[in-house]
């Protein structure tokens, strides 16, 4: 058992050494460079959310198995054959079939907004899914996924042993975001030329207006307002006006 743990720790030290060289920030985001020279940000899913997804899958499989058991009761021997085949499919095929045919998402993962992909960003297929799910057998040793969990916690990208061997990642699905419109104030340029990062900070502030409570917006705006020669009373709307002018809106 210890040797297995060592395998996991050993492999992870290798992979984390590689990834930490690219990103020095303390963050779990994985940057994937595409052949077009674009950096895509992927967010690997950590332990708790994956445990939840697994629990949902487990419950669902238990329910399906109960149905198969009912088939056994009502259909007699043919039902028993059916039940045993479906038990087998639920045990070994459930994850693989869903991952291959449902864009890397088992029902549990889909509910939790997770997705399995190859670590090069391509969609998962038969061989990757089979590998990671067959090696689940090792991850769940000695009990309750101890090896998988330790391996995952020690990995920069939350990969269990099966993921490491198959070269797969479990990430948060990239979902479309709802764009919020900016506050309707008349645009007015800033009193001083702003650097790019300053402009960016103002834009971010303005675009987050619906997420921030009013008091917090005022608090934040009050810090910067004097430097931009804005009246403290209109600090928030003044910053919105500058943001609109940066965007080129009227």
């Amino acid at each position: 058992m210890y040797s297995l743990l060592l395998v996991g720790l050993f492999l992870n030290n290798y992979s984390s050494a590689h990834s930490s060289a690219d990103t020095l920030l303390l963050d779990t985001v994985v940057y994937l460079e595409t052949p077009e020279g674009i950096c895509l940000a992927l967010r690997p899913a950590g332990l708790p959310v994956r445990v939840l997804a697994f629990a949902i899958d487990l419950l669902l499989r238990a329910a399906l198995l109960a149905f198969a058991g009912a088939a056994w009761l009502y259909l007699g021997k043919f039902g028993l054959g059916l039940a045993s085949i479906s038990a087998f499919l639920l045990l070994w095929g459930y994850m693989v079939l869903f991952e291959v045919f449902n864009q890397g998402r088992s029902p549990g993962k889909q509910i939790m907004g997770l997705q399995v992909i190859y670590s090069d960003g391509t969609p998962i297929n038969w061989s990757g899914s089979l590998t990671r799910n067959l090696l689940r057998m090792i991850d769940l040793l000695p009990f309750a996924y101890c090896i998988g969990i330790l391996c995952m916690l020690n990995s920069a990208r939350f990969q269990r042993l099966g993921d490491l061997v198959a070269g797969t990642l479990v990430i948060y699905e990239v979902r479309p975001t709802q764009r919020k419109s900016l506050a309707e104030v008349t645009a007015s340029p800033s009193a001083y030329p702003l650097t790019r990062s300053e402009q960016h900070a103002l834009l971010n502030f303005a675009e987050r207006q619906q997420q921030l409570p009013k008091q917090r917006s005022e608090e934040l705006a009050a810090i910067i307002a004097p430097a931009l020669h804005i009246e403290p009373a209109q600090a928030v709307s003044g910053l919105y006006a500058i943001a609109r002018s940066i965007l080129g809106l009227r």
Partner: protein
Amino acid sequence: MKQAHFETLQHSTWQAFAKKVQALDKGHAQAEHIQDFAQDYRRICQHLALAKQRGYSEPLIEDLQQLVWQGHQQFYRHKSPTLERLLSFLIVDFPSTMRQQWRCIAVSAALFFASFALMAVLTRLFPNLIYQLISPAQVAHMESMYDPAQRLLGPISLRNHQDDWVMFGFYIINNIGIAFQTFASGLVFGLGSVFFLLFNGLHIGAIAGHLTRIGYGETFWPFVLGHGAFELTAVVIAGAAGLKLGAALIAPGAISRVAALRAASTVSITLMGGAIIFLLLAAFIEAYWSSSNSIAVAIKISVGCGLWLLVLIYLLTSGRIRHAP
């Protein structure tokens, strides 16, 4: 260019691309969706790069990133699974991988068949040896399964029914489970695979030796011969796939262990794919053919030998010439 202007100029391009991607995601793509996909995808990539470089706002960048991601998922993928893939896997990929990996196969086969033969001979010489490995109750159980007086042979005889379906399910679960175990435990430096190969070899060898000794050989051997061609080969293949993983971990060569494992896993999973197909075939034969005691022994043995020959010919010759798919 200010962000608002940029957005109004490009908005229609992005929407059109989003529609294309959605159609492709849902799998009902028309010719119009595929046409110019590559150009559109690269254009969106360029827009994203521009947006980042010009310091446009975060939500716009996130939107573009999401579009690029969806395009990327459609544009770059490993070969798609189709019927052609399955055929080319069966005819070319699997047998040629088997021949390529003959060292692992040889080691695995040696472990399994040597322990099988050793135990079969030893049980004939020392009748009590079997009880070191298998409990007396289980031995009695085995004896009743292969009693020549039975109408049906093997595990099927115990359950007192004619429904082959049930046993088909039972064999699949049991045998594929064993094969999966043998493979996956190979990740423990190959030790698990070695253990399961030896364990299964000794176990089956002991039963074979014992049943032959007490005179049930004429029911046991014809029973095993037919589906054994697929089942025993599949166990050996699964063992070889596990050993391959273990070997990559022990001696990765000039690459890192993770990279070595990843490379080994593509080979191993090809082997396992073949093993699964073999086990399905074996379960089918075992449930419908081997278990019947009404077929003459001579026919069963000749069919069994024929199947072994077939498997050997398939593994040795298939896919040596590559055809266009």
